[in-house]
């Protein structure tokens, strides 16, 4: 999260994120996302906002919050949000080192997949297939879990 920001900016992002967490606490819906995911999203949006003020391109924080407000409700799926998060945490440990490093660079060093390919001196296709394999593994495992879930309300 700190990537791309100097120490002062990182402090500023942390403070603004804490204030946002306070302001938006009432809207936090734990059936939709885990607290860590929610706070991550807020901190990420604040960082984007700060980059924008520094003249770098980004969408407004409020735009992102609007983006994440689903336009159609799928309550039967959202019950699982907290469980999904716990499962994602476990599943990350099962990814190969090659796959994990690409994902970590995206989240911690704020690099696009193109920049990651350049840095690791890998063909773009290799980076793309690592991302797709990693996400494929997560999706497969989560969908398998859902098959074993009893239908909600049962």
């Amino acid at each position, binding site marked *: 999260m700190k990537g791309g920001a100097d120490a002062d900016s990182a*402090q500023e992002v*942390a*403070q603004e994120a*804490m*204030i946002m967490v*306070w*302001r*938006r606490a*009432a809207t936090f819906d734990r059936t939709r*996302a*885990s607290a*860590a*995911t*929610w*706070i*991550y*999203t807020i*901190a*990420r*949006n604040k*960082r*984007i906002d700060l980059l*924008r003020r520094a003249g770098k*391109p*980004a*969408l*407004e924080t*409020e*735009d*992102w*919050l*609007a*983006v994440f*407000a*689903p*336009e*159609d409700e*799928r309550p039967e*799926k959202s019950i699982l949000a907290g469980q*999904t*998060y716990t499962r*994602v*945490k476990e599943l*990350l440990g099962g990814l190969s080192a090659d796959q994990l490093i690409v*994902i*970590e660079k*995206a*989240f*911690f060093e*704020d*690099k*696009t*997949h193109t920049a990651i390919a350049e840095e690791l001196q890998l063909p773009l296709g290799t*980076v*793309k297939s690592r*991302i*797709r394999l990693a*996400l494929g593994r997560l*999706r497969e495992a*989560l969908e398998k879990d859902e098959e074993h879930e009893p239908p909600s309300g049962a």
Partner: protein
Amino acid sequence: MKNMSRHPAPEELLLDYAAGNLPEGPALAVALQVALDPGVRRTVERLRDVGGALLDQSAAAALDEGALERTLSRLDAAPVEGPAPPARQPGFDWAPVALAHYLPAGARWKRVFGGFEQIDVPLRADTHRAALLRLAPGQGLPVHRHVANEYTVVLQGGYTDNTGNYVAGDFAIGPGPHAHQPIADPGDPCIALIVLEKPIVLTGAAGLFLNPLLRWGWL
């Protein structure tokens, strides 16, 4: 699963988006597909879970002494409610909320060379240009090829080109290997957001006089 797009944005682009690394133009294009497509939204939600899990596992970094106090002192001044979402403009009921933020007040379709209509979508970043295009059923864009990345999200109706059929919620990314000529499907007019990294180059006779216009940002 209902409404799942046959043309989702590629997953590496969704990772860039979820981690907050996409420039404004492509981010807006992905945001619109996220708003329209439950399947893509789920993928992005999963990626947010990944971000949260990585954050949770990473070593804590110490804040400055006094950071808590400064934060608490700013709390009193912070409004509890965020700003209201923008009002939907009449005639733009097909526009997802994220796009409504970008539509200039009183936005109106303007007829452009080639017979289709356009609304410029102002971006703060100057690396990309964005515009809404509207094509009447059966109407086509001039044959063109792309020299740089182009992102398209269909918001209403649909179009067909040599790569397939794209309907509301579908995402297309260029450059493809071939020149293409999208033609709007029957039914409602086709409305799409187009985000261009650099001007496109028209092939064929029309290109001779249209390309200079494109380079000047007319299209």
